[in-house]
């Protein structure tokens, strides 16, 4: 008996990955809705946790001809305890009971209304950020680039076989053969001409013999010239050329003033966490600058931005001023695609709002690609909102503002702000 034991464990996992993708693609609309739902319901700290997705079972069903309920159906069941032939049993109410289980009911759990499955975190984020992008990402430059492309850089006599350029090599060989054989072929021609003239005269036997030997020798020399020689070989050479990449920086401006209650701060943080995840995931090279402000603004790191509890009054322009400084020092607008997202409850020192407007208009907006303002507020519009409305009118393509009242607004507003505009 022949047999074979094979360890398949090292073999490819994810053999069914294509089928999985097919399924996800087919139900992308459903899944997208479920993902958006899930994101809204989450606590802030696990926004990126993967989650169970459920789709109405009838939408994923694969129909078959099958029997429905009704008619005369007999069933054989195990485990009789007290029945005897002729007993009558009340029909169980509500779908599957004694009758349904033995027969044709599918074994996949007909009773469940939802088809539930789990996405990987990767897939979850894919669905979360699908169709989003940073708008106007246009400035490209060569500084600290990491991307190269290979371009043709002529030929070299040295290289790997895979890069051999056949045409160039043969062309070189041809030229060499012509050059090396020229003198010989000229001599052969002369001798053949002489042979022709001699052939008519009978007395030149010896000379004819001589010429024939000479021709023979020349032929052999001709044959010794190789068709292709090592030094004929030419290889393509590829050189690395840096390609311009876009470098971008995102400024996250968050109001942490006293008027921002814990709830409002949570909403703001939710927004920035989404933004942070989105940028980290979709753009490998992007700088993120975190600025928090009350009456004074300070640049902080990620940890402090999301978790620090410091608070105070409100001067929004302080943050704008700090941003402007940082841009001037570290992110010259000529090289960088600059983005900013600001979140606030809109309450500001009365005289400060016009100042903010002027700063935005005067120095910030001309240098940024996109500026998004999110006001988290359940009451009526605040001074800052009115001030910003004027800006919106002038710069509709690079300025956007949205209002958020509770956590279920965050994800839609986020999607709205960064939706890919059809070109």
């Amino acid at each position, binding site marked *: *008996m022949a047999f074979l034991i094979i360890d398949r464990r090292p073999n490819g996992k994810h053999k069914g990955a294509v089928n999985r993708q097919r399924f996800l693609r087919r139900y992308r609309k459903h899944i997208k809705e479920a993902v958006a739902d899930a994101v809204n319901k989450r606590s802030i700290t696990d926004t990126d946790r993967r989650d169970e997705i459920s789709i109405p079972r009838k939408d994923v069903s694969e129909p078959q001809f099958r029997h429905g309920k009704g008619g005369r159906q007999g069933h054989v069941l195990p485990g009789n305890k007290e029945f005897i032939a002729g007993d009558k049993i009340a029909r169980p109410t509500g779908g599957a009971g004694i009758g349904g289980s033995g027969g044709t009911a599918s074994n996949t759990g007909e009773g469940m209304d939802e088809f539930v499955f789990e996405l990987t975190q990767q897939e979850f984020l894919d669905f979360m950020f699908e169709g989003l992008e940073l708008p106007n990402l246009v400035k490209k430059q060569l500084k600290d680039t990491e991307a190269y492309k290979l371009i043709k850089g002529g030929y070299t006599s040295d290289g790997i076989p895979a890069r051999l350029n056949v045409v160039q090599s043969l062309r070189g060989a041809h030229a060499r053969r012509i050059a090396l054989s020229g003198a010989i072929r000229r001599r052969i021609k002369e001798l053949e001409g002489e042979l022709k003239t001699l052939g008519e005269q009978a007395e030149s036997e010896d000379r004819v013999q001589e010429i024939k030997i000479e021709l023979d020798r020349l032929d052999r020399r001709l044959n010794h010239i190789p068709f292709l020689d090592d030094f004929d070989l030419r290889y393509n050479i590829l050189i690395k050329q840096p390609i311009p990449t876009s470098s971008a920086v995102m400024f996250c401006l968050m109001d942490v003033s006293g008027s921002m209650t814990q709830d409002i701060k949570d909403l703001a943080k939710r927004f920035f966490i989404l933004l942070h995840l989105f940028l980290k995931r979709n753009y490998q090279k992007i700088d993120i600058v975190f600025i928090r402000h009350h009456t004074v603004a300070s640049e902080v790191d990620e940890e402090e931005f999301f978790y620090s509890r410091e608070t105070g009054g409100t001067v929004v322009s302080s943050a704008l001023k700090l941003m402007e400084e940082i841009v001037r020092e570290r992110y010259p607008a000529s090289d960088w695609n600059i983005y900013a997202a600001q979140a606030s409850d809109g309450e500001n020192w009365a005289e400060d709002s016009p100042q903010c407007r002027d700063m935005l208009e005067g120095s910030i907006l001309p240098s940024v690609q996109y500026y998004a303002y999110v006001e988290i507020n359940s009451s009526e519009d605040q001074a800052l909102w009115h001030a910003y409305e004027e800006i919106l009118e002038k710069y509709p393509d690079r300025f956007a503002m949205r209002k958020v009242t509770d956590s279920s607004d965050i994800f839609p507003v986020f999607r709205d702000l960064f939706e890919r505009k059809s070109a």
Partner: protein
Amino acid sequence: MKKRKPIAESSEWTFEHLDAYETELARIAERYRLDTYPNQIEIINAEQMMDAYSATGMPVGYHHWSFGKQFLSTEQKYLRGHIGLAYELVINSNPCVAYLMEENTLTMQALVIAHACFGHNSFYKGNYLFRTWTDASAIVNYLLFAKNYIAECEERHGVEATECLLDSCHALMNYGVDRFRRPAPISAEDEKRRQHEREEYLQAQVNDLWRTIPKKEKVKVEEWPRFPSEPQENLLYFIEKNAPLLEPWEREVVRIVRKISQYFYPQRQTKVMNEGWATFWHYTLLHTLYDEGLVADGFMLEFLQSHTNVIFQPAFDSPYFNGINPYTLGYAIFSDIRRICEQPTDEDNRLFPDIAGSDWLDTVHHAMANYKDESFILQFLSPKVIRDLKLFCILDDDNEKEIEVTAIHDDSGYRRIREELAEQYNLSTQEPNIEVQEVDLRGDRSITLRHLQHDRIPLSEDDAKEVMKHLHHLWHFDVHLETMLEESVTSRFICDDESVRIVTGEKAVQTKSKAEV
């Protein structure tokens, strides 16, 4: 008693151990005349097992979203602990590939080797259904051909179009088998070679069937022969050969789905026998190992515990009840055949005069080779098994207020239980009986299917509507499905370009006569 010299003491398995067990089991199996394909044992992990699940165990398969759905659903249930994964999975191929889970203990590995590599394997090789319907040596190649062909279709005609077509074919998959005709075995090598000629030839045939150019001698409408001349049970085959507007590649895809469905048909017909046979043999083989002193007492205890779990049958009113466990039923019948042969009682002598006292090995081999679930139960389900499982029979008639218990495990009930249980495994009554009745060649080109209703059991309407749409997708013209109860049409599904509607009663009949005019 001989001193025990167990093959292994530990519960962790190694490749040497598997090898040793395989060798010993093969030696014993030969003594019991288990004829098998060469075994190929593959060790896999949980994720690979889930992959195998969703590809119906096959090592290759074409891509389709429904397999992804299957995977996600298995994964979800597994991760939540609703189901354990099978210890093994074995496919009917030559060599016979058996997947073993890496986390099985050594005892479990020995059990599943006995179960899969000798039990199932010999069943695949010996049972008449598998012998006539499947070609174990060709299936993997055929699946590879199918995978490549469908990938090519996706490239040429788009993933979307191919997927839609497969959806439609899958909806009719259970009606893609020849239930009665004996087939020519599929031959994978020929498949590719013949495929091109088939494409062209087929298209020509179809065109001829649908020719609209009038013939010289005018034939009166009534004289057109009925088409098809006899009702056709294999819907996919009928579509492949006769659907008017399918492109050649679409016909080939229909054919692929049909072929694969046909390949799995024997498995669907022998679930009880196949599992029963494998369970019977793992029990017998491991006991023989024990008798020879090759395994220790601890091994046997672990094995018996697993074995007991495998053949556990919850009662009908238990929350764990999920139908009759095919392992239990099959194992009980095969064990009982052995008992009847070795220790027949008066009852056995009366009821099974042919096998009582005969050679048990001959008898179980004969039973394995020549029956399918339905006939196996009808032939071999003994009163003893009925009593042990306390089987009883109920009748659920929607004209009656209550469900009636019609038979229990007593003298007057055995026959009825046996017949009803056999019927429960008869695929042709478990699935609605639907055939192609007629195609209106000269009129609106509609196709009419006929559902022969049995015991007034209706079709599930929602499903039927969806399937009708798929059928329309393949046929491209109106599709009718009439339900016949005792010679008269009771209802009719009509699927046209826009929708599916149902008409019942008088109207259903009228619509038909209109179609015939």
